[in-house]
């Protein structure tokens, strides 16, 4: 068999099943991942179309509604009832999805980009640079994620932008470790040696060979990091230290801050925002797990 023939059969073998196509088929056959996709779909639709779906104004107070005690529960007028200041909870949940999604995406993007650059440099340059970067990452991992975010918000001051930076920075070490491991594993791989032997420069090998081959664990981790980011943001909101005006901003975590005194009379005030958090976090976790299984080359072809 000539080389050309061998190549042809190889191409024929690979063509009908690309990694991504395979992964997609495996993903949509995984019941957990389907539930996850549904949850995330609900979450994203709520976030994007909040102004269209909302029945009221998210910050408009209506103290008359709570004149007879707290708080009227779900009704035809207020699907999820009203909160301690007579605001429509359904509307606030929808707008809350916007905050969570926005903070989630931006903070994961921050953590991912900084983490990937640091991890790639550490793995590829090696030596002193490697140990210096990774020791700092180890230390960041030693500080509990929420505490690190609290510290950063404390230093930068509250506000949407600073929360994103805080949650994002807390994510950096995870991505840095991931990419460093991946780079180290591939640095001596045959295709890298081949690229090097034909004289391709190191940065180009890194960007056009090594990073693309590390992309699938990064995507899995990115999905899982979205879940963590949503939980961390809710935690900061609950503690009342994230946003400048926690009373006004419809943020899920902060909706749970003052309700424990009203648990007996209005349990829905805790149950509804809490369920919203659980559904969105669960959605990203399930997709992440499903992707991990779908993309794991060890499971391919089984």
């Amino acid at each position, binding site marked *: 068999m000539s080389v050309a023939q061998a190549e042809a059969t190889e191409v024929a073998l690979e063509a009908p099943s690309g990694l991504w196509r395979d992964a997609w088929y495996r993903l949509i056959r995984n019941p957990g991942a389907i539930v996850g996709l549904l949850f995330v779909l609900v979450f994203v639709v709520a976030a994007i179309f909040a102004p269209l779906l909302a029945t009221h104004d998210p910050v408009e107070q209506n103290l008359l509604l709570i004149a007879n005690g707290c708080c009227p529960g779900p009704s035809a007028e207020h699907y999820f009832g009203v909160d301690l200041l007579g605001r429509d909870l359904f509307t606030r949940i929808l707008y809350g999805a916007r905050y969570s999604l926005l903070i989630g995406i931006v903070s994961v993007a921050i953590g991912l980009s900084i983490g990937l650059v640091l991890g790639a440099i550490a793995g590829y340059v090696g030596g002193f640079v490697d140990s210096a970067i990774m*020791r700092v990452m180890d230390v960041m991992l*030693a500080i509990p994620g929420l505490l690190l975010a609290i*510290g950063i918000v404390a*230093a930068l001051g509250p506000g949407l932008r600073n929360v994103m930076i805080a949650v994002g920075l807390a994510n950096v070490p995870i991505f840095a470790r991931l990419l460093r491991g991946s780079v180290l594993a591939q640095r001596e791989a045959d295709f890298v040696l081949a690229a090097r032997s034909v004289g391709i420069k190191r940065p180009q090998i890194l960007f056009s060979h090594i990073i693309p081959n590390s992309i699938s664990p990064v995507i899995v981790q990115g999905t899982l990091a979205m879940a963590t980011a949503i*939980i961390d943001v809710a935690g900061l909101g609950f503690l009342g230290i994230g946003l400048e005006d926690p009373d006004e901003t419809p943020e899920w975590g902060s909706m749970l801050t003052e*309700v424990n005194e009203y648990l007996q009379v209005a349990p829905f005030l805790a*149950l509804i925002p*809490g369920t919203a958090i659980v559904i969105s976090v669960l959605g990203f976790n399930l997709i992440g797990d499903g992707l991990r299984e779908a993309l794991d080359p060890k499971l391919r072809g089984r």
Partner: protein
Amino acid sequence: MAGGQQTTSLRTYALTRLGLALPMVLILLTMVFLLLRVAPGDPITAALGGRLPPEQLEERREAAGYNRSLAVQYLEYLGNVATLDFGETIVDNRPVTRVITQNGAATLELTVVALFVALLVGIGVGLVSGRYRDTPVDVAGRLFGILIYAAPVFFLGFLAQLVFAQWLGWFPTSGRASPVTSYDLDTPTNLFLVDSLIALDFSAFSDVLSHLVLPAVTLGLVTGGVFIRLIRVNVLQTLQGDYIEAARARGLSERTVMWHHAFRNALVPVITVVGLQVALLLGGAVLTEQTFNWPGIGSELIRYLNNRDYIAIQGIITFFALVVVIVSLLIDLLNAWVDPRVRY
């Protein structure tokens, strides 16, 4: 002979590991110092600015040494931490070490019991799930693990309060002890469970315990979710091992195979994960304490945060991170002792 060799290499490993921990602590302290100094102004201005006349503010800044160069302040900070002096809070002039000794016991009690709950639930559910793979028990166990992992601690805490305190009335909603108990009980160790046992005051003990149940179980369940998953996978992997088949072939009862061969090996990595979970546990403790009005370090941290007291925040975060570093050091040593492969 082999024994002698083993102890030497364990000691070498311990020294190397300790040598690695020291630069880590230095980086940690530098990071915390830089982090809380990038804030505009200095801690005194941040906490008291606008509340004191400018001259008085200036006086206090000078007294605290904030008019000196950052390098001097940095070296002083390092020196202080080395002598276990984490500074004095600005808003109520309390040494941070006292915050730790006074409120630390509450946090310690909460986290230790929570870790115990986490291990109990995690190991129990994990082993059963792995042993009875793909049966309804396994599906239920996995579902429980996934759900618990997605629930924020404070939401789970509210659910627990709602069901077990408000509806069923089994446990108190919040706090560490009822007023009578906290008034009567002598607290030499500040660990209320221990104190009530020392005093042989069993009504106080049961009161303290009933206050501890909901927060500890809440924090423990959230932490335990990770263990369920880990142990299940480990059981599945060990069950595929050749030695399991060999044990079965030798005619050992299924029970012996499970307990002495499979489960035992599946539990070794748990030690490592306990170390990793300590950070999660401490972060979760901050939220749990806030949810249950638990007077621990986490509650104090949030109180100082709302007062913008950077000295207190810096001290408490440094302390938490040091705990994580020390625990992970101990875990690594324990691991090296249990599993010789780790030392290489």
